[in-house]
């Protein structure tokens, strides 16, 4: 144990020195990803479902809605995230009361990730066999019931996988949001690792993100596998 402490002290001196800050940054990242993730999943699934049911041949076919939603998503997805954060400052202030720190990071994160989640959820829902929907309609089941109990239920393994991919993207975005004043491990790495040339801090940050991504992917895969029959 002592040897390990020695090793860390020798090769990662700054990590040891600023471990309090690192822990705080970690907590911020977890909160950022957690809160922004939960909000984005809700809107992502909602918009994903809207995209699928309003598409041609869908349960609530509506060219106008599907057209507008599709275009809007494409526009938002084409804006680089760093620019989106700056662009959104007034709106962020309006929603969160501040444009910096944990609170300030959440609105741009949500706006940045929702279009992406919507698309991956849309893809997952498209995988559901059209024949199953038709069979349900032939049974005289109402459209809202079909959406909730058949469309979403049948797409669940795909939705879980979509959530995993989105969560990983969100971790990446949260680090970027940190760089522009959002806090979290991203800003920690920029402030110490980049601005003060503490390479060991950058290294540890990368290691943490790597572990986080793998953890999310691993858990997600397990759940998705259990749900696939």
């Amino acid at each position: 144990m002592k040897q390990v402490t020695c090793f860390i002290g020798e090769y990662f001196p700054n990590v040891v020195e600023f471990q309090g800050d690192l822990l705080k940054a970690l907590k911020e990242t977890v909160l950022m990803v957690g809160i922004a993730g939960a909000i984005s999943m809700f809107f992502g699934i909602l918009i994903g479902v809207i995209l699928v049911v309003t598409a041609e041949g869908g349960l609530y076919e509506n060219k106008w809605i599907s057209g507008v939603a599709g275009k809007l998503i494409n526009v938002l997805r084409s804006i680089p995230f760093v620019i989106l954060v700056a662009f959104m400052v007034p709106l962020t202030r309006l929603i969160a009361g501040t444009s910096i720190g944990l609170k300030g990071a959440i609105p741009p994160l949500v706006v940045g990730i929702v279009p992406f989640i919507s698309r991956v959820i849309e893809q997952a829902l498209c995988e559901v066999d059209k024949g199953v929907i038709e069979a349900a309609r032939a049974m005289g089941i109402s459209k809202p019931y079909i959406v909730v109990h058949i469309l979403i239920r049948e797409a669940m393994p795909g939705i879980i996988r979509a959530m995993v991919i989105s969560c990983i993207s969100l971790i990446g975005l949260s680090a970027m949001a940190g760089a522009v004043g959002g806090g979290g491990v991203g800003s920690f790495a920029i402030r110490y690792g980049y601005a003060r040339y503490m390479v060991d801090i950058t290294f540890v940050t990368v290691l943490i993100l790597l572990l986080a991504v793998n953890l999310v992917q691993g858990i997600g895969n397990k759940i998705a596998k259990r749900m696939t029959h």
Partner: protein
Amino acid sequence: MSVVNPEPILELSNLCKTFRTKYNSVEALKGVSLSVNERDIFGIIGLSGAGKSTLVRTINMLERPDSGEVRVSGREITSLAETDLMRVRQKIGMIFQQFNLLKSITVYENIALPLRYLRKSKAEIERKVSDMLEIVGLTDKTGNYPSQLSGGQKQRVAIARALVTDPKILLSDEATSALDPQTTDSILSLLKELNSRFGLTIVLITHEVDVVKKICSKLAVLDKGEIAEQGTLWDVFANPTSGIAKKMLSRLFKLDDIHCALENLKIGKIVQGRGLLVHLLFKGEKANNAYIAYLVKNFDVCISIIYGNIEVIQTSPIGSLFIAMSGEEERVQAALGYLRSEGIGVGILREWHDKRREEIH
């Protein structure tokens, strides 16, 4: 025959449907009318693209016709609003070529699905689902997922699911087309049993003559969006009038195979020189008479039998016989005349004799 004029449970009149895309339009149904009585097993047969699937989908309004009427138990349904339509659909079961089961839930839950939607009590769901499992013979598969079942078992689950709400009509859209011949037979006999045991009316869409022959009591032949022919199975098979029905019948009697065989040089040579090649169709009672012996005795013609088979359509036999007939011209003609006067279908396939004579001269 025993029932006096049964009520039509399903009446389609003058249904039209055109699919329009940006570039072209396809007339899927051009004024289709037919009526299905209670307890019928009504077959609708046609080639792919004939409009069968569209037609069956108009029966439960999965596809709204452009014009025409659909009456279910006397009630016009094309003008119904969605909520009323849902109630009608709950009384019409439907099964599909691709089974369309939910992959994410078990056999039990698949069958329970329509009941859960109708908010039936837990006890009732359990009773109904286990009844249905018993009927389709899958009591041991309750907890399995669809991916663990064979095609035939999946279709049985689909049948159970379609019938768990006690509908009076079952629509079958090519339900056996994805199954092998043996499984097809077992599914068809299940349908037949449901028909006789519970008085279920079945409307069955297929492109296979065999399927129709095995279980249907009535038949409509659909060709390019129109009914080419309709009636009892016997009517259509014994006296086909449309080209498409004749073609179907010839497939049933393997006429094409015979033609193929005759093209074969060896068989052709054997048959050659023995006169007229004739195809005879004996219908119903006629199939029992000894016509061949009679012809040989009374008309002094030589007959060699090439190939024959018999098909039973709704308990009445139809016999098909290929013979080569030779003898003096007028005797042969007299023999053929006699067969025709007896109501036997006479088709002359090839006049080998004449052809040979031409070659000599």
